[in-house]
């Protein structure tokens, strides 16, 4: 079902074309003596729908017109054009930047943003206008997650072009930053991807040679996976046809970390290519808590409220597994962290739990 993923270089060209196109449109409007305007889809909740085919949130047909004729739109309009130019220069010079950088760089152009939030919003506007995520136009988040496993990549970033690296070369894993995100995949012996929520467990897995024992590429999401990481996981799944298994804490928040990797977030409804619909949540399930008799903490009010929200969320209607787990959480009113398995010894999770769950969730994890 998936269209072939574009190569990193192709995608960069598309993004540059789009940015230049935006500039030309505004330029032409000015040449014609009209107040320039742009249109983009509305991002507010009433225009966010769940797409069952794409298995992610998408924006509906409602569009807004941002016109420089309107004094309230004027400043954000100028900021948007500036952000487009800034991204264009970054991307064409193959440099990268962060949201924090954007905020400060603007001051050099006397385009001050009131605060970080204002500049973040403008970047999200630009994503919406272009239909590309900011990583595509070279603006990366601060948070960084990591990857470890037998995968050789080939850099495309200036200075490293053509160089290769095997992702087992550093025992702490390799940071998923702009260089890795834009690298091409060379070859791998792995046959699966295991995404892990917490750093402690990620390190344990490396120490316990999970990558070898299970032939896996290990990805640390470090809590809610950054978009670059979600994009990276998708590429592993799409380009290398590797099934993706996700291990999180056994609570509504862990469950949702898995869901965002699988189906994306409403905040990114204006973007594609950030989801991995075929990835599976392998644990820790509510039913695991019962079955493995894990040490637990009670679910508090906020946890329960979150469960009720998730129960109604269309993403959680896709697979009966979600509803079953939500109901079980609600019934047992307990939660457990991944570390809870240590009550059975440090290697229990690797020796017993992991193989069992890979087996159990493997059926569905098969890629087409």
């Amino acid at each position, binding site marked *: 079902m998936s269209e072939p993923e574009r190569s990193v270089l192709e995608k960069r060209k598309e993004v540059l074309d789009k940015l230049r196109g935006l500039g*030309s449109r505004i330029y032409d409007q000015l040449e014609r003596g009209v107040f320039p305007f742009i249109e983009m889809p509305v991002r507010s909740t009433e225009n966010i729908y769940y797409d069952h085919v794409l298995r992610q949130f998408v924006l509906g047909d409602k569009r807004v017109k941002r016109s420089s004729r309107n004094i309230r739109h004027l400043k954000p309009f100028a900021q948007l054009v500036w952000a487009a130019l800034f991204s264009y220069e970054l991307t064409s010079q193959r440099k990268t930047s962060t949201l924090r950088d954007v905020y400060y760089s603007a001051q050099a152009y006397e385009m001050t943003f009131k605060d970080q939030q204002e500049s973040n919003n403008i970047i999200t506007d630009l994503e919406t206008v272009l239909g590309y995520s900011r990583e595509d136009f070279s603006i990366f988040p601060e948070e960084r997650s990591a990857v470890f496993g037998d995968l050789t990549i080939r850099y495309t970033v200036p200075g490293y072009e053509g160089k290769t690296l095997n992702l087992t070369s550093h025992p702490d894993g390799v940071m998923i930053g702009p260089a890795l995100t834009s690298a091409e995949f060379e070859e791998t012996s792995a046959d699966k991807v295991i995404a892990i929520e917490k750093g402690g467990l990620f390190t344990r897995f490396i120490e316990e040679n999970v990558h070898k024992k299970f032939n896996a590429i290990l990805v640390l999401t470090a809590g809610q996976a950054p978009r670059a990481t979600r994009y990276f996981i998708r590429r592993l799944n799409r380009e290398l046809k590797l099934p993706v298994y996700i291990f999180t804490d056994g609570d509504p928040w862990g469950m949702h970390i898995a869901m965002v990797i699988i189906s994306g977030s409403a905040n990114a409804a204006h973007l594609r290519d950030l989801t991995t619909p075929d990835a599976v949540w392998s644990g820790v399930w509510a039913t695991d808590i019962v079955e493995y008799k894990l040490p637990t903490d009670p679910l508090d009010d906020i946890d329960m409220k979150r469960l009720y929200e998730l129960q109604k969320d269309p993403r959680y209607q896709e697979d009966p597994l979600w509803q079953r787990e939500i109901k079980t959480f609600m019934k047992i009113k307990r939660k457990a962290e991944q570390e809870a398995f240590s009550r059975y010894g440090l290697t229990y999770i690797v020796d017993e739990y992991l193989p069992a769950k890979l087996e159990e969730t493997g059926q569905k994890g098969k890629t087409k």
Partner: protein
Amino acid sequence: MAQATFEEISAADFFYRNRDIAGFTNPTRAIFAAIRELVENSLDAAESIKVPPDIYVRLSFEGEASEETQIYRLRVKDNGTGIPPQHIPLAFGQVLYGSKYKLKQQRGTFGLGGKMAILYGQITTHQPALIISSTGGTRIYEYKIMIDIQKNRPVILDRRITLNKDGWRGTIIEFTLEGDYLRAMPKILEYFKQTAMVNPYANLTFVDPKGRLYIFKRATATMPDPPTETLPHPYGVDVELLQRLIQITTHGNMLDFLKNHFHRVGNVTAKRFLEFSGISPSKNPKKLSHDEIVRLVQMLRKFKDFLPPDAGCLSPLGEELLRTGILKELKPEFLAVHQRKPATYSGHPFIVEVAIAYGGEISQKNGFVIYRFANRIPLLYDEASDVSVKVIESMNWRRYKVAPDMPIAIVVHICSTKVPYKTVGKEFIADRPEVRREIANGLREVARQLQRFLSRREHADRDKKRLGVFSKYLPRIAEFSTKLAEKDKIPDIERLLRNVRRYGVE
């Protein structure tokens, strides 16, 4: 048991003992009050013959009196009517002697002010006062007088007559008094400034003990029409006044008596009133018993059909002069003045004039700067008790988009044949419902004008700001999009900016 002793005291003695009520409370107040009383007499004297006043005031240091107080010599010179020689001793040497007991609007009313100043000087320095005056004839008269307090009589110490070669007309008064100028200075300077504001046709010069010269120049030679004298209005009559009128009347019947001694009472009104009160038109007023007089006063008040007093006896400043005076002294950015139609309280006609000024030299403090005037006299003390202040405080200023921290001055001028002062010190005006209503209506009118000004200004500000925003961002958009589109020539945005200037866009 001690025997109570009774004694009669003279009017001079009475005011000497009660100088507080006339404003001579302490060395600071006294020096202010003395200047004020003399300046007001001079203004009256010049205005009554419609001559733009030229008043020169000099206060000079004479010596130390005590640790806190000094002795000063005060000299006030004017170009007013001058005083006929036969009146000079009494005008300045007998309390409650004056020429202003008539029903017309003047500053002086009690026949007291100038004498209080001289009396105060006399009791603090034991020196006579010098009065030099000429009505413009061939002679100038000089008197040195003291007041015999117990007898309320002037004592003439010296009298000289000189030839008036230059045809001078006016009055000079000079005497010494004890006071505390340093403390009084702010009020005195404020007094001159405010006097200049409501007397824009006057030249005021003040030389203070340090030799500093303050000049308030006239901004116009136009003067308000002097008031005409008037008869008492029936609603304003009391038993005392009625008895006095009966005593002096030459008319032998009630109908003629009413027609000739009362303001706006003609044949028809007089007849209708006599019918209403059941008094025979032919009755001789001199034959009225005390009870009948009391009843007559009551009936006069009850009768609904007297015409309201007309305001010819009043001499308001007028919107033009008020405007001139305020522009001259405050140089505001915006000014609205308004004169109310004449109104009456208990038979006394009065006119309220108000103004509101914004910006310029008006200081920005929390609350308005309030200028209160009565018959063109600034009122500087007891502000909190004044009716204007009460009205201003009770108004909902937010309705007029006015905030307390704006630089706003409010001017209230009330003129009347009988200003409802609360005290002889003439410092604040009593809260009469009729007066209150006039002030409130006047203030509402000028407040509305201020509101229009403020919102016009806000609009202009907004337009300017709007153009500023467009001028800031459109060139940026042009520049960035040119670079982004990889073009060379930046598009011309002048046309768009012209649109903004002309139509304001959205």
